[in-house]
C-alpha cells in the first residue's frame, strides 16, 4: 500500500469570525474534494492569541472532530492542515487543499496568505 501526504499553512486575513468556524469550514471543504472512500485522515490546527483549535476527520464516516483550548480574543489566525492517504497522489490532495481553501475564502470573504512549511526529514 502506498501513502502520500500534502500540507498547507496559511495566515488568515480579513476574517471576521472565530477560529472554530474557520477550521470546521476548511476541513469540511477539503473533505468534500476527496474521494469519499479514501483511506487516511485530514488533520488541522489553528493558532491564535489566546489558544488553539484542533480538527480531524477520517472521511469514513464523514465526521469532524474539533477541540479547542483557550479563547479567541481576535487578531491573527494561523491555520495548518495535513492530509495523509493511501492510494491517493500528493497532487490530488494538494488540489483538495487548494479548492477547499478557495471555497472558504469566497464563503467568508477572507484571504489565506501562504506560510512556509518547516522541512521534515525523509520522504513518505
Amino acid at each position: 500500500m502506498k501513502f502520500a501526504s500534502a500540507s498547507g499553512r496559511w495566515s488568515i486575513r480579513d476574517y471576521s469570525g472565530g477560529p472554530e468556524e474557520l477550521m470546521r469550514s476548511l476541513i469540511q471543504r477539503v473533505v468534500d474534494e476527496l474521494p469519499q472512500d479514501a483511506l487516511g485522515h485530514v488533520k488541522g490546527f489553528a493558532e491564535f492569541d489566546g489558544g488553539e483549535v484542533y480538527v480531524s476527520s477520517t472521511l469514513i464516516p464523514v465526521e469532524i472532530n474539533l477541540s479547542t483550548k483557550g479563547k479567541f480574543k481576535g487578531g491573527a489566525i494561523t491555520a495548518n492542515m495535513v492530509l495523509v492517504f493511501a492510494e491517493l497522489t500528493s497532487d490530488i490532495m494538494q488540489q483538495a487543499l487548494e479548492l477547499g481553501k478557495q471555497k472558504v475564502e469566497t464563503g467568508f470573504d477572507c484571504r489565506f496568505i501562504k506560510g512556509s512549511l518547516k522541512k521534515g526529514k525523509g520522504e513518505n
Partner: protein
Amino acid sequence: METNPGPKIVSVYGFLGSGKTTVMMRLARKIISDGGKAAIVVNEAGDIPIDGKLLDVGGFPVKEIFAGCICCQAVGDFIGALKALQNVEGLDYILIEPSGMAEAPGFFASVTRHVTHGLTRALVLDGPRLLLLLKAARPLITSQIKTADLILLNKVDAIDENQIAELERTIREFSPDVSIRRVSAKNGLPDDCLADMLL
C-alpha cells in the same frame, strides 16, 4: 540496593485516524494523575507536526519525528530519541506513537533491540473502518493485529452490537487469544483499560 530498571515503553499504534493520539492523551493523563512521569515520542507523516502540537498544548513533553515512516526512514532519529529518554532520571514511561503508515513487525523489531525495560504494544483499531481496511490493506492490518499485546477496538459508539461482535470474531481469526477492549476514546477510557496498558 536495587537499580532503577528504567522507564517502561508503551507503544500506541494503528492506522491513520484510528484514534492513537486521543488514546495517548488519555494514557498520559492517567500516568500524571497517578503521580508518574512520562515522555512522548511521536512520528507523524507530513510536514507539519499537528499531533505533536496537540500533545504539547496538553502539557506533555513531546519529541517529534515527522515527514517519514518510523520503521523505514526516521529510525535513526527515533532510536536516538528512545535511547536518550531511557537515560532520563525519574521517568516512569515513554509513550511511543508511530505513524499510521508504519509496518508493525519492522517497527517493533527496531524498538525491541534498544528497549531496556518492558514494552507494551497497544493497537488501536478503527471500528467503523476495520472491514474496509482489511479489504484494502490486509497485510498491513493483519500484521498489526498479530503483533499486539492488547487491542483497543475504538469508536464503538459509531457501530452497533452486532457489528462489534463481528469485528471481534474477525480479529480473533488473526490473534485468537489477544485481549480486546471495546472503547470510545474520544469519550474517555476505562481506568482498568489504561491500567492494562501500563502493566
